[in-house]
């Protein structure tokens, strides 16, 4: 206590001077401020100074607002100047005006387009500043810097004029701000030393197309498709196509290391190499013995899998994907493994940090037998893989039989429901511990036609299901159709959708041959199976455009119909490729070779039986070029670039922000804004109301009920509907889908019911469980009211039924 006194006194003494100094600073600051007001200047790129001119900024903005009737250039200009300081550079001024426009998006979404265009102009200036005035010049320049492959440079040089002419000057007008910011900060190639961008956004897309094309016509066609934002390949392709490191695959599925030290350390090495070039990794760990198991070589006991996963965790964190994003991996474990409980705690934020892996994602790879015992409230045996090494390779009835035999040597027996409950808790507390179903994944895969071919895990995002083994790492490259770009209020443009899928399939297939494989195990698998994953994004955009609530029967029908069209066209295209180039080498091992296509495995009734029948005949004759075709990936980044909602997800909020390495971005539901504007309701009080309700419009009484129904968020939808939609489209997805589920306040009861339902619906995999923060930061910008007295009469409240948790006094 004395210490505090002294401390305080010292503080006061020291402070007297401080106060005086502070006061002096204060008045000097005010004077300076006065002066700044009068003579604020900016430094130009050539070093000269000039006074800040509001009209000049207004004119710079006006260039871009022809089709943006709600944008006020003067407002952008004055707000920009208010944030500026005397002596700032013109580059700072440009950046600030972009930021200022972006900050008005919450009021008027059109500012998103304006900010994007100002940014495009800024990037363009940067590129031109390096004497690059055309696409072919940018390729030549970047090739000289060692960024572009010789092949692509030569291809562009041969066809320079055609390609330069193909660049669409209006292309950048289509971007929203968040999308273009992402592109500019992470996708455009940069000078290795100066870090300046050396290509404009349109040059970038054309470069990606050239990297995968044999003729200029092909390249231009693919470029136009991407530039229209109707389809985008996945990030690794967008990053690396045409460059010197053409690693264009998104996913790698690595089998569990064998139960020996050398194999485990080889896996670390492989994972590091795969991570380096922007791949996401799924890796199984079920073959490695658990804690306490005997090690014969040393006559010691094993420490189990956790210390090894801790090492994996550090390895993944160390490898940064070319500075563009962090490495990421998901570990899959089967629930009979003796370390399963510790595994489920790996992401907890309490407990011994040596047993926590903050960078790894976790997934449960669940045999049906486990789920059956959960349902029947039976026992569950934990078995050491060193006692039953065959279990990871078996599924279905064979697994059940082997498991029952192995149970006789169980390390421990637990209640199946207790373990299931722990899984649910992990999901609620970390969002991790994804529930994926081993038997269904294997039984309904085209690749498991031959005994001995087993799918051992899914990938980082639970949408890829491919066979692998110790020597072969499964690989998949992905791309997604933007459904929103194929829908108008009149409905789906089916012809356009088919055309998009055909083009997309050809280029997904092309990646397999041009791809650089960072690990020999990956190079061993991909040419044999030639799997690709064509996905979908913007389902929510389509449903908003057509005004269909997410949980309506019409929405389910549309989503299923779209998926059938995509899959059917994809198989047709693959059959066409097989006619020209032959089937993929492992075709004979597939279920398709036995006459079964995926919808039949599922027992679905397609709406286009005639086309399916014709297709089957073609496949019977020529086979397929690709063993797997369709997978619905999360599309987190490419949906942003395309400016649509992610994959098959409902909107998370009508108003939310994204936090990325590029900064923070406000996202407003433009469909809702249009609706509100039409009703004269897009006002500051309503905006505050939506903000206060964290993006919900359910409390806006002025909106008719059916409008509120349409604009529900993921938290407000019955999750059963999400599962039903997923199950309905599943027959037309031969891999799987990244299906997030949303519960604002999860309980073990809700979760256990929900995941049992998901399993019974026949889904192969599920992805994150999303939940909401327990409490929120006090809002800093919406109007406050005097805090109401919650404790007027403590006695009365203590007995209130509205406070059941505090109301045990009477029980």
């Amino acid at each position: 206590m004395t210490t505090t006194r002294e401390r305080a006194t010292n503080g006061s003494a020291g402070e007297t001077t401080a106060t005086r100094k502070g006061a002096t600073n204060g008045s000097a600051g005010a004077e300076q401020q006065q002066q700044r007001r009068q003579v604020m200047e900016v430094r130009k790129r050539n070093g000269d100074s000039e006074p800040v001119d509001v009209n000049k900024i207004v004119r710079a903005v006006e260039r871009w607002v022809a089709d943006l009737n709600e944008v006020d250039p003067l407002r952008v200009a004055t707000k920009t100047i208010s944030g500026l300081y005397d002596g700032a550079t013109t580059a700072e001024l440009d950046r600030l005006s972009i930021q200022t426009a972006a900050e008005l998006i919450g009021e008027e979404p059109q500012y998103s387009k304006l900010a994007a265009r100002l940014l495009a102009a800024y990037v363009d200036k940067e590129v031109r500043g390096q004497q690059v005035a055309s696409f072919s010049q940018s390729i030549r320049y970047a090739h000289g810097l060692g960024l572009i492959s010789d092949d692509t440079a030569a291809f562009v040089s041969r066809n320079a004029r055609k390609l330069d002419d193909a660049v669409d000057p209006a292309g950048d007008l289509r971007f929203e701000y968040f999308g273009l910011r992402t592109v500019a900060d992470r996708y455009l190639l940069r000078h290795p030393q100066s870090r300046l961008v050396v290509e404009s956004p349109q040059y970038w897309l054309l470069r990606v197309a050239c990297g995968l094309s044999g003729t200029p016509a092909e390249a231009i066609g693919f470029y136009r498709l991407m530039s229209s934002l109707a389809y985008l390949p996945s990030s690794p392709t967008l990053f690396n196509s045409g460059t010197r490191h053409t690693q264009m695959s998104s996913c790698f599925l690595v089998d569990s290391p064998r139960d020996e030290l050398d194999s485990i350390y080889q896996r670390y090495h492989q994972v590091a190499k795969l991570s380096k070039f922007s791949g996401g990794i799924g890796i199984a760990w079920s073959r490695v013995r658990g804690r306490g198991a005997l090690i014969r070589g040393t006559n010691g006991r094993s420490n189990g899998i956790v210390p090894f996963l801790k090492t994996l965790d550090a390895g993944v964190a160390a490898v940064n994907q070319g500075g563009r994003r962090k490495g990421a991996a998901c570990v899959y474990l089967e629930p009979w493994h003796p370390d399963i409980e510790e595994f489920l705690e790996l992401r907890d934020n309490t407990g011994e940090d040596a047993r926590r892996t903050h960078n790894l994602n976790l997934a449960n790879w669940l045999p049906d037998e486990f789920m059956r015992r959960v349902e029947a409230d039976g026992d569950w045996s934990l078995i050491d893989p060193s006692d039953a090494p065959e279990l990871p390779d078996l599924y279905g009835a064979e697994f059940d039989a082997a498991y029952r035999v192995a149970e006789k040597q169980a390390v421990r027996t637990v209640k199946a429901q207790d373990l299931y409950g722990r899984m649910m808790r992990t999901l609620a507390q970390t969002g991790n511990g994804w529930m994926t179903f081993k038997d269904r994944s294997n039984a309904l895969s085209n690749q498991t036609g031959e005994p001995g071919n087993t799918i051992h895990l899914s990938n980082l995002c639970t949408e890829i299901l491919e066979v692998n083994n110790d020597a072969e790492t499964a690989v998949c490259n992905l791309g997604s159709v933007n459904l929103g770009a194929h829908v108008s209020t009149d409905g789906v443009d089916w012809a356009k959708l088919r055309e998009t899928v055909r083009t997309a399939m050809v280029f997904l297939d092309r990646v397999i041959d041009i791809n650089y494989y960072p690990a020999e195990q990956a190079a061993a698998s991909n040419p044999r199976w030639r799997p690709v994953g064509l996905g979908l994004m913007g389902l929510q955009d389509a449903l908003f455009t057509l005004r269909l609530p997410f949980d309506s029967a019409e929405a389910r029908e549309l989503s299923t119909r779209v998926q059938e069209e995509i899959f059917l066209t994809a198989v047709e295209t693959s059959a066409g490729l097989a006619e020209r180039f032959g089937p993929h080498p492992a075709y004979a091992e597939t279920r398709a070779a036995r006459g079964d296509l995926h919808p039949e495995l599922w027992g679905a009734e397609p709406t286009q039986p005639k086309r399916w029948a014709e297709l089957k005949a073609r496949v019977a004759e020529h086979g397929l070029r690709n063993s797997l075709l369709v997978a619905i990936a999360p599309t987190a980044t490419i949906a942003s670039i395309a400016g649509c909602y992610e994959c098959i997800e409902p909107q998370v909020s009508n108003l939310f922000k994204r936090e990325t390495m590029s900064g923070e971005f406000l996202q407003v539901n433009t469909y809702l804004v249009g609706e509100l504007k039409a009703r004269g309701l897009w006002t500051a009080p309503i905006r505050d109301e939506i903000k206060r309700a964290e993006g919900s419009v359910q409390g806006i009484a002025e909106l008719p009920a059916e409008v509120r129904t349409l604009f529900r968020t993921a938290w407000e939808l019955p999750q059963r509907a999400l599962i039903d939609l997923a199950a309905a489209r599943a027959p037309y997805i031969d891999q799987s889908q990244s299906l997030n589920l949303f519960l604002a306040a999860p309980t073990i009861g809700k979760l256990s019911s929900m995941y049992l339902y998901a399993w019974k619906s026949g889904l192969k995999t599920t992805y994150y469980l999303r939940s909401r923060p327990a409490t929120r930061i006090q809002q800093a910008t919406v109007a406050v009211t005097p805090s109401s007295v919650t404790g007027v009469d403590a006695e009365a409240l203590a007995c209130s039924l509205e406070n059941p948790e505090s109301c045990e006094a009477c029980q």
Partner: protein
Amino acid sequence: MTTDAETRTATAETRTATVATVGERHLLLDPGMDLTLRPMRYPHFFDRFKEAIKNTWTVEEVDLHSDLADLAKLSPAERHLVSRLVAFFATGDTIVANNLVLNLYQHVNSPEGRLYLSRQLFEEAVHVQFYLNLLDTYVPEEKERFAAFAAVENIPSIARKAEFCFRWIDSIFELRELRTRADRRAFLLNLICFAACIEGLFFYGAFAYVYFLRSRGLLNGLASGTNWVFRDESMHMAFAFDVVETARAEEPDLFDADLEQQVREMMAEAVDCEVQFAEDLLEQGVSGLSLTDMREYLQHVADRRLVTLGIAPMYGSQNPFAFMELQDVQELSNFFERRVSAYQMGVSGSVTFDDDF
């Protein structure tokens, strides 16, 4: 009014000896060490305690990796801003924790209220650890690091804020019990000072700098840790205002125009302290964060605190920072970027198969 208060004080005095008696009615600020949780007198305090537990986070979850690369990218002006800012953070939470232990815990006579304060103390400790870790990472050079930790002594703009805090800690330091109306008003002023001025203004000012940087994609590690600190601080402030309101409801006569005037003066001084801090931080000019806008923001925050306390706003200023509006909007991180901080700690229930979902 005075008579009422005197009577109550007198009653409180006679009650002190037997204050632990089960079920006896006493007021929140009555002296004593109430130990009785049933029947619960202030269940809303207990609810806040439970809510706070759901927000548990640890320093190890914050990844400061990318910050180091960002620090190298900052302009000299921004680097000055960051170094001053972390120097403030180095001691800010410790000061708050001290007041909590030395003053608040003693006088909030409710076991459930003290549960919350215990939890708050833990959170302040985590914040201290976070900023400790941050400084150790940001400032690898030992001498420079020690200087940052000594900011309350050697950086005038921070020393002035510290002096303000110490003066208010001292204002009731001698008080062992809140016997008179004057004692209780002194206590309320201390409580309001720490909630509205220190956590509610100094910290909110500091958060604005962090969020400015984050809105530019800089120092994500600092931002994600600060985000959790901010979430905790929001709750601390809400709890303190809850205590104020509870005391006001129990003893309305504690509040009058005189007290309001004292709060206004205190707030005006706090705003001055924070503006001179801003002058220091922004002295080299940071594009997008002008001193004019910062002053406007601080006044706006001060007004909000006053309104919450039922006092008319003093400045009538609007928030000029759109990036602060972003803080009011729900986040959606994808796992390729940063860690998802939105998950709950306490989950209840047992396995069933027929719950609605």
